[in-house]
């Protein structure tokens, strides 16, 4: 007798366990299955700071949250409906994210004395009544797994390692997800280890069947396809992966080899990892000795005619400042990607933050403007990488692309774009002299103030460029005072001119004028969007603007802002965009800041908006 199935609009589940418990894989496979069902969704992994913190401790807990729905889903969810806790530490670290009345699925073996001690808990919360306001289901998953695999020939250790598949199977059952995609992926993953594969599959099914057969569960749930999603072919994508794909696409659109100079750093390394897999796309990845060498090698590659990029995070970007100045002076294309993390200094390397905007704008000596753009979510990264590359190449300018740890590691369904619809990127190559009497003028500008890109190897166009101030047009070293002023203004004008080649700012939602506009950038997008949507559904009339272009701003931004009485600028920092807006437009923009290494949640966003509205 099949158990009844209840339909839900949206659900948030948090899988939490020890680093070794495989919660990331569990979450990912649950995500895949949900995506294939056509749910809209958003996920967020919450890694521990240590590689392998001592087992069983709070520091060693690894979490993965998925928010999926048949409605629009913009964030991984503030609060979860279900918490899977593989041990005491996982419960301790994550209980605060669970709604009252929420479901806890606990591996009771993970609450033995040793685990309680490691989690620094005096009493067993599964026993002492402290979880009374939740719906707790205890299962000795370890025991089940060992029993199920008794005759598999695997050691206890190996058996224990597969127990996450039991959890996955159980949750798949509970939310009516088919197992096919998980099975397929496990088969691929363990192709070379048939016993492990069999053990995993066995536990996956065991979990599924467990839901069906035990009395513990009386209802199942289902979440249907999201009708709000655009039609087309989808796949899941993580932020850093999408950036990597975007750069490969950009190099193809520009007809240039791709060159990445990088040095590993959390949370940017995955771009290097991803790109290094795709050599067949004429991708050159270079793990340099440090961040300075990484960007310098990229500058060399750019001089040679490649689409050159460099990827890092805050501390590494700080090291690149001098070289970014050189690229600015050389007027060569380069994209500098900063996957922001908690700062200052080493800060909170595994946490997210948006505190490198002012560094992106001003973190160099001298008047050194670069273009700054940002991405708002994982499925936005592909396009932003292409856009950054386009601007760099077509405007001969360094472009700083800002993402953050939240976007980098988050995953979302991505409507796979039709590459043939993308505009080609046109490098400003010069192969013939552009001056009088067959002279080359490497710094002669076109009407966008852009100089030509003259590649070494081009016969007859031999020339020298460098970091000293250059004479207008000839590019020769010049100490002439007026020329210096002219060139400083020219480099600024060239960046400003990019505003003519980017879309005007659109209002995401809400009225075109009114009491309040909320202006965000980067990864706060989903949260702000959800908060405003919910409030406007309640009858408020709040506008949302979300910036992609931070330098230059879209030409109409100032105009738009002046149409609202109040401007609220939420940021995961201590107030940075708000400074630029106040300076530029002299509007009394109000900062709203959270600096906890965590994204905003919808509840606090709504609360702040209401506070600003005086409600």
């Amino acid at each position: 007798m099949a158990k009844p199935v209840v339909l839900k609009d949206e659900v948030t589940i948090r899988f939490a366990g020890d680093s070794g418990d495989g919660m990331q894989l569990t979450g990912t496979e649950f995500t895949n299955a949900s995506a294939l069902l056509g749910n809209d969704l958003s996920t967020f992994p919450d890694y521990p700071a240590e590689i392998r913190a001592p087992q069983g401790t709070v520091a060693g807990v690894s979490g993965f949250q998925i928010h999926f729905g048949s409605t629009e889903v913009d964030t991984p969810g503030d609060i979860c409906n279900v918490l899977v806790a593989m041990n005491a530490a996982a419960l301790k670290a994550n209980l605060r994210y669970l709604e009252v009345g929420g479901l806890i699925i606990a591996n009771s073996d993970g609450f033995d004395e040793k685990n309680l001690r490691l989690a620094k808990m005096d009493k067993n919360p599964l026993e002492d009544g402290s979880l009374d306001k939740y719906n707790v289901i205890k299962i000795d998953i370890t025991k089940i797994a060992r029993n199920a695999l008794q005759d598999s020939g695997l050691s206890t250790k190996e058996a224990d390692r597969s127990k996450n598949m039991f959890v996955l199977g159980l949750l798949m059952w509970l939310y009516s997800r088919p197992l096919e995609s998980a099975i397929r992926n496990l088969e691929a993953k363990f192709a070379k280890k048939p016993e492990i594969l069999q053990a995993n599959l066995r536990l996956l099914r065991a979990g599924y069947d467990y839901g069906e057969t035990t009395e513990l569960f009386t209802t199942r749930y289902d979440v249907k396809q999201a009708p709000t999603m655009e039609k087309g072919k989808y796949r899941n994508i993580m932020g850093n992966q999408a950036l990597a794909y975007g750069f490969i696409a950009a190099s193809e659109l520009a007809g240039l080899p791709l060159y990445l100079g990088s040095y590993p750093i959390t949370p940017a390394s995955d771009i290097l990892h991803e790109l290094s897999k795709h050599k067949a796309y004429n991708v050159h990845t270079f793990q340099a000795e440090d961040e300075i060498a990484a960007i310098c090698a990229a500058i060399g590659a750019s001089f040679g005619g490649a689409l050159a990029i460099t990827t890092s995070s805050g501390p590494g970007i700080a090291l690149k400042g001098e070289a970014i100045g050189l690229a600015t002076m050389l007027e060569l294309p380069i994209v500098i990607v900063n996957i922001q993390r908690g700062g200052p200094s080493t800060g909170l390397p595994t946490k997210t933050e948006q505190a490198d905007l002012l560094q992106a704008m001003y973190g160099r000596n001298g008047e050194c403007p670069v273009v700054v753009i940002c991405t708002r979510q994982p499925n936005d990264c592909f396009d932003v990488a292409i856009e950054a590359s386009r601007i760099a190449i077509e405007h001969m300018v360094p472009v700083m692309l800002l993402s953050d740890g939240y976007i980098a590691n988050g995953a979302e369904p991505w409507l796979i774009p039709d590459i043939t619809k993308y505009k080609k990127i046109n490098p400003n190559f010069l192969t013939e002299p552009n001056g009088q009497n067959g002279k080359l003028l490497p710094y002669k500008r076109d009407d966008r103030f852009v100089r030509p890109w003259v590649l070494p190897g081009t016969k007859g166009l031999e020339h020298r460029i460098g970091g000293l101030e250059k004479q207008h047009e000839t590019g020769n070293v010049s100490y002439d005072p007026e020329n210096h002023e002219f060139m400083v203004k020219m480099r600024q004008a060239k960046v400003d001119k990019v505003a003519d080649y980017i879309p005007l700012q659109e209002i995401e939602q809400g009225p075109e004028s009114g009491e309040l506009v909320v202006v965000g950038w980067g990864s706060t997008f989903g949260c702000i969007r959800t908060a405003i949507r919910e409030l406007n559904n309640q009858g408020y009339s709040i506008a949302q603007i979300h910036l992609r272009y931070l330098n230059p701003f879209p030409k109409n931004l100032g105009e738009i802002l002046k149409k609202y009485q109040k401007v609220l600028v939420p940021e995961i920092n201590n107030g940075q965009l708000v400074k630029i807006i106040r300076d530029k437009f002299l509007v009394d923009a109000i900062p709203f800041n959270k600096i906890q290494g965590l994204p905003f949640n919808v509840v606090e966003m709504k609360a702040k908006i209401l506070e600003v509205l005086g409600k």
Partner: protein
Amino acid sequence: MSETITLNHTTTLTAKDFASDQEVRWCPGCGDYSILKQVQTVLPELGIPREKFAFVSGIGCSSRFPYYMETYGLHSIHGRATAIASGLKMTRPDLSVWVISGDGDALSIGANHTLQLIRRNLDVQLLVFNNQIYGLTKGQYSPTSEEGKITKSTPVGSIDHPFNPCALVLGADATFVARSLDRDPKHLQMVLKRAALHRGTSFVEIYQNCNIFNDGAFFIFTEKETKFQKGIYVEHGKPMLFDNGKKGVKLDGTKPVVVDMADTSVNDLWIHDEKDVIKANILTRMFDDPKDTDLPRPFGVFYVTERPCYEDVMKQQIQDAIDQKGKGDIVKLINSGDTWVIA
């Protein structure tokens, strides 16, 4: 000078073709002028079209070099020329890439990139103009200045033990190590040609006189009176003779000793073997203050070996990937993994 040189005279370029229209702005008398001239003399003999040369430099007097060359050039930032050249060479292995650097640029702020380039062995010529001083910043001691050096920043003498550049790069497994001097044009030309022909990073230390801030630092090796007593010009397969054949060096175990040829047979001398890394090491360590030693300072090509060039393997890996998987197709890539359709 060395029989391994085979030059390819396919162009009819001359030294003049390699001089740019920029006024040369080193101090009158600076050793850089001679080095510039020897490079301009050697390049036409390499049979490489002019547009295929790229000179990359950092910051320093020496680093102004590219401006004076009618080739592609990049005058970059202090210490980073080797890193920039690496990226250039990786994507453009068709170019002949030369790095021009100073003792400060290459061995102080840029030492890390220098050594990493050397272990990676990109096919780049790395010329370090060693004047044992910071020229452009008007005379502070450098990492090659002798201990106790009195300069603007060390009025009672520097404390640092100097680098021995050739020994340092050998420690980083350099595949080509040589030393020459601004004031010996023929020798410098020979060394530059050898460097150009070597596949891999060619490290060439060039003693260069800074007549403004460190005049005469190498006169003992460059001026007639002492040059042949204090220096020894080594050639592969030749015995280590100096002082016009009056003296020689032989190896006592691993220890080099000076012998009087009046009572020594040439057969007992150390025969220079540029393929022997340990002997190269002994050579580079003949580095004591010339006033304190009778061991001469060696010049010439100390060590040459073959090792794959980074850019070749990089290219090969890309080619292998294409051969195995076919040329990348972005449509396939973004459509890979699990997909689903919403209709």
